[in-house]
């Protein structure tokens, strides 16, 4: 029974890891950019939602928080345009190290900005206790915190809409074309710059949603950025770096491993749960570097 609860908790937590991995995978798939700043995007999202829902535009705390998320996402679109235009665009076509270091610079700027604006004090969302009651919800024998319900709902929403966009619409078609061959796509009249900008926008919105959930679980501090990076990288890697569907599966698997193996091991070696994602990351890298659904790169000399 305890094991069943662990599995449910793991899968529920895994959904939000999947959303972060989606944010990471999307940037890699379309722009071939390894986005190290994903944790800091999550952190920024948590703080922006905190700030916008702190305005208390409506009385109901649940709607207030959702409104905060929407407003933060709109703000995120602006940041996405700035990121693409001023940081990434000058570097297209340069070496992979330059692109990675630029995302590192982006991460430093975002994290620094949140620290300067909001300090290092632990904060919670306004109306946290009404929206996420401390007593978990009991479904039969299983107890599950309310935060995870939000996580599952948000993940389904964002994954459903993203997969529809990516697979069924003309826009998604253009996106896939750019990810396959940017130059060929450009000759067919697709604006690469626009596609890259939209990709960053989706990545920011996904990261902000993850910020809401992670911020609600851990409280909003700088720690959220490390937690985000630590979960997004292994989850994306398990599924394969360029497979959005694999990202979700990777997230679920990571959540499962963390909440079963991690919790059991934690009883013997206190504190080892914190580094379980990294151990998973190392093992996946050694056993299956291209993940479950990733494209295997063949290098030519």
């Amino acid at each position, binding site marked *: 029974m305890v094991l069943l609860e662990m599995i449910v908790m793991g899968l529920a937590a895994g959904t939000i890891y999947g959303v972060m991995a989606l944010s990471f995978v999307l940037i890699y798939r379309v722009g071939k950019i*390894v986005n*190290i700043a994903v944790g800091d995007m999550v952190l920024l999202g948590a703080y922006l939602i905190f700030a916008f829902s702190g305005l208390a535009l409506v009385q109901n705390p649940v709607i207030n928080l959702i409104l905060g998320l929407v407003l933060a996402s709109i703000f995120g679109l602006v940041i996405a345009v700035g990121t693409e235009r001023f*940081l990434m665009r*000058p*570097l297209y076509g*340069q070496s*992979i*190290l*330059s692109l*990675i*270091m*630029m995302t*590192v*610079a*982006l*991460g*430093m*700027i975002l*994290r*620094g*900005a*949140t*620290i*300067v604006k909001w*300090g*290092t004090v632990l904060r919670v969302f306004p109306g946290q206790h009404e929206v996420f009651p401390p007593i978990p919800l009991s479904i039969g024998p299983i107890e599950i915190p309310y935060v995870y319900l939000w996580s599952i709902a948000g993940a389904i929403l964002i994954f459903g809409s993203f997969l529809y966009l990516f697979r069924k619409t003309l826009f998604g078609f253009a996106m896939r074309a750019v990810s396959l061959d940017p130059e060929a796509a450009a000759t067919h009249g697709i604006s690469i710059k626009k596609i890259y900008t939209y990709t960053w926008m989706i990545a920011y919105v996904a990261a902000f949603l993850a910020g809401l959930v992670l911020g609600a679980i851990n409280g909003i501090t700088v720690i959220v950025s*490390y937690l985000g*990076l*630590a979960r997004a*990288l292994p989850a994306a*890697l398990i599924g394969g770096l360029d497979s959005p569907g694999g990202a979700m599966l990777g997230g679920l698997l990571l959540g499962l491993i963390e909440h079963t193996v991690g919790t059991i091991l934690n009883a013997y070696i206190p*504190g*080892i749960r*914190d*580094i379980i994602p*990294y*151990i998973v*990351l*190392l093992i996946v*890298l*050694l056993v299956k*570097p291209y993940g479950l659904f990733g494209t295997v790169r063949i*290098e030519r*000399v």
Partner: protein
Amino acid sequence: MASSRPCGVIKESYRADMSFFEKPFHYWAMGIFVLVLLILPFTAPEFYLDAILLIAIFSITIMGLNLLTQAHLFSVMHAALMGIGAFTTAFISHQVPFFIAMPVAGIMAALVSVFFGLPSLRIKVFYLLFSTTAAQFIIEWILNWITRDIPGSAVYTAPLAVFGYQFGVLEQYYLYLLITAVMAYLIAHIGRTPLGKAMVMMGEKDYAAQIQGVNLLKFKAMAFAISGFYAGIAGSMWSYMLGLVTPEHFPFLMSWELLGVGVIVGGLGSYVWGSILGSVMIIVVTQVTTELVAVLSPYMPWLGASAFGLRAIFYGIIIAAILILEPEGLANLLRKVKRYFDLWPFSY
């Protein structure tokens, strides 16, 4: 190194070609630089000496990291490797003198570095960033776990002394400068040995290097070992300087600062001067933000405890600006200045 040689640089013998100094002017510049460093403790306040020591320590780590990055083996575990060196020193410094403790710390860090670096045979390019990120957090966790019974995880290092003779500020300053000079001399030489050339080849394409006869296992392991040794020595020096070390001294962010600001801003491939410039950048930005916050906080109270955040913003902006404006780093600027003076006053 000098692949295309501008006019004005004339080499008449093999000896001259292999010399580190191309022109008499460079001898003079180097001499003045060393002289200033030697005289400085008698004129400058102690605050500056500490900053210079920090620059020396970080530049040693960055030298090793620069060599590793040149081979396209990206590592973000170097803060943790410094931590290994520092903790090894802290644990053994009460029994043995520093000239034994430092190499032992270096060797420990080198072993750990090789252990986490060997997967690089299978893991390529940015996947290596992920695995070393994991390594950084795992090492950090292990350091915390070893010191779990000590309050605050703080381990004391014995003061710098040899056979009962206590080192003062002045002796420590000269000792650290000497160590830095020796390490810089060694790394500059490594760049010209078969090892250094193998690094450049592996950086271009490791498959191709293998076809040319580079033993990848051997050279990748050696790259990680050398880099780890440098980080360990630097960590050991920092440990003696701090007097007490905790795992919090070696955070994940520092690894990124070392790679981003130290190597990329300093200048990839310029082992000595690029590393020193990168290190200067790290320390100067830290000091300037601390000063800035101290000056501004009476007028802007919300700035209060956010020197840390301000520093991150500055680092980010500097990295972004360097990547866009001068991708080869500050060392390239230095090279341009040098080239300008080669033909001064009649440059073309």
